[in-house]
């Protein structure tokens, strides 16, 4: 049974766990959906990049030459082929507010079962309804924009 406050999504990918991890982290700039609606800062655009290892940053790069941009969060766990945990902040989060994304990579035959958990919403919301509305308005906007357009959910959710 998944916990009540955690968003969980899983998918099965036809590559081995080591490759899945490397592509997930090393090529996030290529697979993360393109277009302003998937950007943390829709006006600046840019692509996502992981700095490898614990303490590395996940950045939406706005200046390709300098690597400057919006820091989404830091890497908390970096276990190639197995587990990745990183912070995930919206643009309007207050200092200290952060959610957490954990991705597990498990072999399932020749494929990889990838399980992603997004948690920590309770660290963002309390006591600030007026400022936030929903937790992290920019993030809500980002996902809300395409949510409205979404015709078919691709999700295969873990049993609750």
């Amino acid at each position, binding site marked *: 049974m998944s916990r*009540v406050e955690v968003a969980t999504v899983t*998918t099965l990918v*036809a590559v081995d766990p080591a490759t899945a991890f490397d*592509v997930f982290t090393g090529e996030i700039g290529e697979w993360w959906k393109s277009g302003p609606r998937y950007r943390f800062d829709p006006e600046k655009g840019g692509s996502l990049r992981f700095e490898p290892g614990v303490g590395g940053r996940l950045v939406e790069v706005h200046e390709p030459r300098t690597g400057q941009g919006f820091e989404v969060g830091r890497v908390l766990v970096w276990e190639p082929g197995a587990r990745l945990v990183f912070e995930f902040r919206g643009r309007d989060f207050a200092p200290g507010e952060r959610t957490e994304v954990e991705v597990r990579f498990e072999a399932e035959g020749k494929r990889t079962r990838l399980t992603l958990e*997004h948690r920590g919403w*309770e660290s963002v919301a309390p006591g600030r309804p007026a400022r936030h509305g929903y*937790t992290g308005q920019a993030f809500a906007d980002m*996902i809300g924009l395409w949510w409205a357009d979404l015709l078919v959910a691709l999700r295969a959710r873990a049993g609750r």
Partner: protein
Amino acid sequence: MTSARALDSTLAALADPTRRRAVDLLRQRPRRPGELAAALAVSPPVISRHLRVLRHQGLVEEERSDPRDSRVRVYRLRREPFTDLRAWLDQVEAFWAEQLGAFKAHAERRSRGKRS
């Protein structure tokens, strides 16, 4: 209460790890305070404090399980506050399902390219 505010107070009540675990246990079935205290390894005063917060935020309700004895109480989860939380998590999950779909397509395309 707007649903955003309802979501906020639900999340606020869940910000405490002991309360989160209590809620997870109550999702399975209603329980007595003593049962929760034992399962969570906290003292009776501590669990009653947490249950008071959960009741104030409308996440749980208490009921008397034995009509002959008003001291026997069980706590059960209320469904309504979790509807907003679930709606929010559904959006988050749909967002990631979309991203993981893109990831899967990219990873498999790339590995096919390598083999050929």
